[in-house]
């Protein structure tokens, strides 16, 4: 039942990461590529690369039938979806199951259930997990008005079929809530094909805290500590840390317990992350959503636990149980990850594809770089602009900040603009060093300061 040949249905740095994890387990690898990714690092490292279709993701990585057809025809008995793309589309594990391919992830019904944010909230409520004060489905503008008054302003109107920060409207008064209802419905239908809305209290100074989980499908769930992902721009994470030192030990323990209780209550299988909003002023955390997949920022949890999460994913998908007990997991030190993108942070973060003409990456005992890029490689215009993830691990947060600052100073990329200089500005900022940040800090404080200094 253990997987012998793994199909990797993704690209870029995560495809490379999964190939490496499979190789460490002596599993053969077949990686899906589009026409634009034939020379990718993952394609070169894998035992075989299969060209699904042209560069456009819709005609290659996003077509579940092409992906499963390729996996089946190349004799793969396992498939890892990575993150993004089809990783949370239940049709993929369903097609895999039809063709005898073990999907590296949760059951399709679980993916569906957690993808419905209202259902996920109900699951959390049933498991005793605190929710953001909010509503169930709001059916009319009049409901929007009355619910908003009950919850207290400001409120966030959200799409049940949404997620990842999309499809949200803020209302600061009952009038705005009523007016916002129609707009939010239209946007939700357009973006997700489903106009179902609900409402949550809006917390102006919040931190985004999430817990890394791994379940065996029988109710046993491990946690690998929490991550603080509060440096964000337009709901996209730029920097993630583990642990969240802004939370005291007692609160942190309750957070882990809540996340584990939720996953255990649904017999969650494989890797997942429970995301929470941490209201620093009230010292309360509230459940937001569960991401039923491995996440971009998993390396910081691996750093503090010394545990390879992707290998464990593959083992569990092959029928193994959890390979460690919670009491044996020791979380130590502090890790920080910077997501380096090919974007010009001084020109509205315009994605800037192109060829890398110089690549001088930092290295060292405490430095990890998850990247598919190298000198001469192309950042193509068809996908995201991620260059790589730079991770450091030190004994304390202060030490990790020093390590990250040094690593960024020693990272030289030419040929495309990158966000290296932005990350340097962030980690050296007094607010970041003093850990006075929140999810709107980057957009409200640092970026405007940077613009003023440049002018």
């Amino acid at each position: 039942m253990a997987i012998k040949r793994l199909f990797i249905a993704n690209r870029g740095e995560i495809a490379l990461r999964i190939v490496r994890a499979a190789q460490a387990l002596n599993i053969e690898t077949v990686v899906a590529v589009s026409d634009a990714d034939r020379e990718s690092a993952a394609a070169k490292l894998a035992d075989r690369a299969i060209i699904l279709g042209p560069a456009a993701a819709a005609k290659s990585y996003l077509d579940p039938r092409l992906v499963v057809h390729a996996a089946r025809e190349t004799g793969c008995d396992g498939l890892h979806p990575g993150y993004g793309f089809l990783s949370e589309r239940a049709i993929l594990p369903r097609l895999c199951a039809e063709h005898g391919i073990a999907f590296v992830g949760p059951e399709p019904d679980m993916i569906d259930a957690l993808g419905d944010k209202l259902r996920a909230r109900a699951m959390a409520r049933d498991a005793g997990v605190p929710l953001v004060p909010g509503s169930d489905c709001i059916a009319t503008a009049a409901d929007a008005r009355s619910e908003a008054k009950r919850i207290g302003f400001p409120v966030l109107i959200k799409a049940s079929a949404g997620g990842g920060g999309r499809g949200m409207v803020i209302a600061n008064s009952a009038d705005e809530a009523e007016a916002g209802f129609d707009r939010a419905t239209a946007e939700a239908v357009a973006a997700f094909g489903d106009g179902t809305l609900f409402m949550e209290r809006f917390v102006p100074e919040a931190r985004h805290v999430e817990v890394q989980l791994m379940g065996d499908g029988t109710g046993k769930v491990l946690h690998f500590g929490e991550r603080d992902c509060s440096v964000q721009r337009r709901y996209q994470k730029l920097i993630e840390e583990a642990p969240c030192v802004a939370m005291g030990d007692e609160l942190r323990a309750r957070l882990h317990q809540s996340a584990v209780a939720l996953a255990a209550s649904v017999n969650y299988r494989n890797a997942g992350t429970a995301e929470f909003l941490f209201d620093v002023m009230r010292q309360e955390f509230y459940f937001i959503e569960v991401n039923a997949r491995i996440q971009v920022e998993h390396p910081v949890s691996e750093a503090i636990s010394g545990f390879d999460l992707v290998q464990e994913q593959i083992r569990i998908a092959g029928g193994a149980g959890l390979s460690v007990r919670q009491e044996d997991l020791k979380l130590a030190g502090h890790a920080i990850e910077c997501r380096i993108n090919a974007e010009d942070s001084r020109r509205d973060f315009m994605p800037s594809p192109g060829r890398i003409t110089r690549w001088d990456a930092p290295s060292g005992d405490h430095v990890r770089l998850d990247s598919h890029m190298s000198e001469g490689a192309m950042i193509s215009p068809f996908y995201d602009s991620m260059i790589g993830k730079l991770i450091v691990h030190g004994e304390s947060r202060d030490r990790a900040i020093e390590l990250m600052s040094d690593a960024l100073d020693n990272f030289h990329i030419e040929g495309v603009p990158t966000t290296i200089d932005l990350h340097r500005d962030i980690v050296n900022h007094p607010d970041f060093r003093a850990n006075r940040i929140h999810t709107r800090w980057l957009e409200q404080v640092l970026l405007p300061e940077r613009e003023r200094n440049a002018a």
Partner: protein
Amino acid sequence: MTSSEFERSVAVLLTEFSRSGIAELNVLSGDFEIYLSSHAGGTGLRQRSGKQLMVPPRAEQVAHPMAGETSRKPTAIVHEPANFPANARIVTAPNLGTFYRAPKPGAEPYVEVDAMIAEGDEICLIEVMKLFTAVRAEASGRLYAILAEDGSMVEAGQPLFALLDD
């Protein structure tokens, strides 16, 4: 065998070898010998024969098929057979799928070698999870060679047919 038939045979040999799982192949026929290797290092066969001809790697590096249960590293393969006539046009697969030469099992293939094909004619099917898409000729021509095996999986961009322009 005429020289153009010979060229065609070599071209088909190159293509078929590239897509087989064979690592190395030495063909000796009369005073013609060709040694084909799918990886840069080569091995023992080199010692046996005095003369070797490496398959010239083409510009694009495309991953090489796996042989059954063995796994090998991806290497360059010949994307367009080197010895086809200058006016040959290669029809490639628009996406990955299973290549079928006939509309259904047991039926006559859409086209055979030397057939005259008109622009817009259906020349094969590509099947993905039971969904069949017909590939149509983009311009008219005579079918020179069939480059993929009926019922085999083909990848996006993989050569299927060589057509000669009129």
